[in-house]
């Protein structure tokens, strides 16, 4: 009889323990990611997502956020305004604490009215790679990790003038219209201010039926001294190939968008000497960046690009903020109060608009690699 009594007692205790365990199980914190996971911009979208995923997995392996694990919910915005809006609404409905994204200016600009509306429930959006000046400088619910393009375009225009280029032509991809038009306009304004002249602008839409060769033949007739390419890595490389083929002697400059491994792979000899303006110095040994590259390669089997790195930094800032205060509605104020975050390339600082301040470097392709140009020459 005593054994029966003991068994019953143990079973009751077990039931209570199991019930308590269930009650005490902490809910996961959901983080949303929205970027182009399919299509021509999927290299940026997938890399950005991988960067975020790596940060999330590292955090979960280290007791999560106050013991709560993070669940990453990814959505495909297809670099399309309607898709972007739908993705963000779905993420808010699913109860995410923050949205990391979008990765292109076109998607970010389309999502902005929703993010700043009451329907978004005060959720913060942190974009790893959006640079358009349309979204910087305003105190809203949109933060960026990559620094605003104004400083980069100004530095690039200054360098172009410094190397004696007076007549520039611009080619840009309308597939990322907001970014491309913004870079073009900002560069043009700065270049004009320094006495330069934009003699022609040619647009194309990647992924459609057009000829890179024809684009460059048209521009070649204008005899520019320099050409600014505002396109993704493969497209920019293809354009460089055509410049060489049509025999243009113009110096080639590119927006940071094109600074990818694909650019070097697809460009071959034709991309030697192309000049970029970018907030990362590839020649510096940044310990955090080297660790990140190593872990990224172990996890995904390939090298990270800039989108992966900024995605990782964006997730790092968001997670650090949530660790200080897990209330999603306080995340914006928490990040602004902390202000300084440890980045992959050294510390970076948010200003009151939620934009990040970083130095810009002039780089060029030398022997198939991105190398720092001595700007003082």
């Amino acid at each position, binding site marked *: 009889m005593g054994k029966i009594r003991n068994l019953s007692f143990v079973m009751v205790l077990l039931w209570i323990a199991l019930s308590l365990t269930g009650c005490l199980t902490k809910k996961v914190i959901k983080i949303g990611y929205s970027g182009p996971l399919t299509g021509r911009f999927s290299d940026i979208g997938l890399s950005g997502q991988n960067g975020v995923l790596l940060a999330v997995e590292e955090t979960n392996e280290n007791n999560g956020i106050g013991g709560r694990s993070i669940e990453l919910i990814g959505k495909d915005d297809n670099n399309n305004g309607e898709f972007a809006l739908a993705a963000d609404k779905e993420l808010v409905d699913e109860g995410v604490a923050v949205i990391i994204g979008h990765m292109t200016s076109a998607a970010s600009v389309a999502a902005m009215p929703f993010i700043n509306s009451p329907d978004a429930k005060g959720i913060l959006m942190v974009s790893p790679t959006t640079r358009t000046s349309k979204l910087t400088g305003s105190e809203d619910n949109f933060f960026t990790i990559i620094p605003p393009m104004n400083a980069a375009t100004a530095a690039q225009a200054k360098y172009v003038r410094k190397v004696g280029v007076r007549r520039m032509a611009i080619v840009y991809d309308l597939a990322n219209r907001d970014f491309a038009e913004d870079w073009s306009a900002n560069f043009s304004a700065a270049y004009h201010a320094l006495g330069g002249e934009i003699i022609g602008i040619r647009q194309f839409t990647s992924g459609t039926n057009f000829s*890179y060769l024809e684009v460059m033949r048209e521009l070649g007739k204008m005899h520019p001294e320099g050409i600014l390419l505002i396109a993704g890595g493969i497209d920019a490389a293809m354009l460089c190939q055509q410049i060489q083929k049509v025999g243009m002697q113009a110096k080639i400059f590119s927006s940071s968008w094109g600074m990818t491994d694909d650019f070097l792979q697809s460009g071959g000899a034709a991309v030697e000497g192309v000049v970029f303006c970018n907030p990362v110095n590839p020649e510096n040994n940044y310990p955090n960046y080297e660790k990140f590259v190593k872990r990224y390669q172990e996890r995904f089997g390939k090298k990270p690009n800039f989108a992966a790195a900024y995605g990782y930094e964006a997730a790092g800032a968001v997670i650090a903020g949530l660790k200080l205060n897990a209330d999603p509605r306080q995340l914006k104020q928490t990040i602004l109060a902390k202000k300084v975050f440890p980045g992959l390339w050294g510390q970076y600082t948010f200003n009151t608009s939620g934009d990040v301040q970083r130095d810009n470097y002039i780089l060029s392709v030398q022997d198939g690699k991105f190398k720092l140009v001595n700007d003082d020459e």
Partner: protein
Amino acid sequence: MMMNRFTKSLKNALTLNFILIAILPILLISFFTLKLLNDKISQQIIEKNHIVADSLAAETQDFLIMADRVSQQAADGVEYIGIDNQELVQHYLELIIKNFSDFNSIQVIDEQGIVIMMAPANSDYIGNSIVGSRYYKKVGDTKQPSWSTTFLSPMTGQPTITLVRPLQQGMIVANLNLGALNRIVAHANTLADGWAGIIDTEGTYIGHTMIGEVNRQTNVRQFDYVKNALNGKSGNYQQVDNGANYLISAAVVKPIGWSVIVGQNADSALVSLQTARSIFMMGAFIALIVALIVAIWLLGKILQPLLTLVKNMQAVAAGKYQVTAGLEDYEELTVLSQNFGHMAEAVASREKALKDNEAKLEISLRNLEISNRELDQFAYVASHDLKAPLRAIMNLSQWLEEDLAGCIDESAKEKLVLLRSRALRMENLIIGVLEYSRIGKVKNKIELVDIQQLLEDIIDDLSCTPPFRIVIGPCMPIIMANRIQLWQIFSNLISNAVKHHDKQEGLIHITAAEQEDFYEFSVADDGPGIAAEQQQKVFQMFQTLRPRDQFESTGIGLALVKKSIQQQGGSIWMQSEQGQGATFIFTWPKRVN
């Protein structure tokens, strides 16, 4: 407590055991059967999936071998026609593309790394430099055919792999569209909630039954089964992902190092098992109900005679000895019933004898009480009445001595003094007897008594000045008691120790110790002690250890002490050896009578 009450009832305990006996085998059989079924079905699914994975790996391998042969044919053709005959080479390459549509494009590269021909023709690519590409450097160095890693083609948006073969002058580059892999995995006839996918060497899906996984370039390198497969190890796994359990089979595509993964949601796969589990649960429930009904019926059958027996025993206990057990259903119960009758008769006869004895005892007690009362009355009256003539004898002898002063000699005076002393002894004896008879008859006042203070007062009263030293031990209690009684007890014990001491100097030590229900007091002296054969006498009435002529004593003191202590529920005893002093120990209950 409730469980205790429940299991202490024979009826409840039997019910519980009946149910356990009925249910336990069903539950155990259900559990082990379900487990065996689960293992067997899981094994069958895994084996089926593994066959599917191997088959898909073989198909993928065939596809790559075919592409390799076509590229070889293209390279041989270009070499045969000659790289300078561009028109014919272009035509030849376009014919190959037309016949093997999985190639997006085939390019001929010259020794400087420039695209010189391409099918289908595309002027954007003719003249382009490919020296930046990894495969150009690799094939240029090794002069061996090479496969690139997979990439998303900017032209088709599909996963693509580049196949490069060296020519005598330059190389041939064929971009193979891997969209065909989706067609291959579609051949997998997986069960519900199953899928098949092909993973490249980076762990990214390049073919999948759910095309979205390819479009999103989902990377699953984090799973151990993927890591193992990428390391060339095929196998079967159980993987938990997002709370769901999956049965996974992995096969390796040689020699390129891709993997084929065939997965199955275990919950969906084991849906038939779920049905079996429901049937078993229903069966167990029905068995429980049946067991309960049978248990209640059987218990009724078994317990009814017992309950009757209990009821009849209660009647017997209440004095109804004529009641029989009333058990006749079974042989054993009939014997029990007969024995019950004998027992009831025996109890009835013993009770009658007991009652007779009780009546006799009551009469004896009443007589005893009358005798005691008469004896006490006699002792009281006798002692009281005897005191008056004694007092007269003492007074008259005193007066006689005074009247005859000068006429009687010293001898006569001594006799008169002796006469008075004997009369005084007689009076003391009478007082002692009177006190003894009063013990227990007088209602004593109960009050708080500080034993330390009481002892100090007694010592002061006895005038026991040095050379006798009386030491009171520590921790003397304060107790509820009759002060006079305790005074008499301690006073008698202390004065006895002083009176019977054989030396001019002596030590008397009084201690107290608290026990669970009583206090234990002791009075020890270092006097002559009492021989063992005399120790029995000391508590008896009128017993003195020395002749009264040698030592004046009534022999009543310790008898009084003993009666007082016993009357309160305590006890007294002594410890002594001849010449070693004596210790009187008595207990005094904490609870006052």
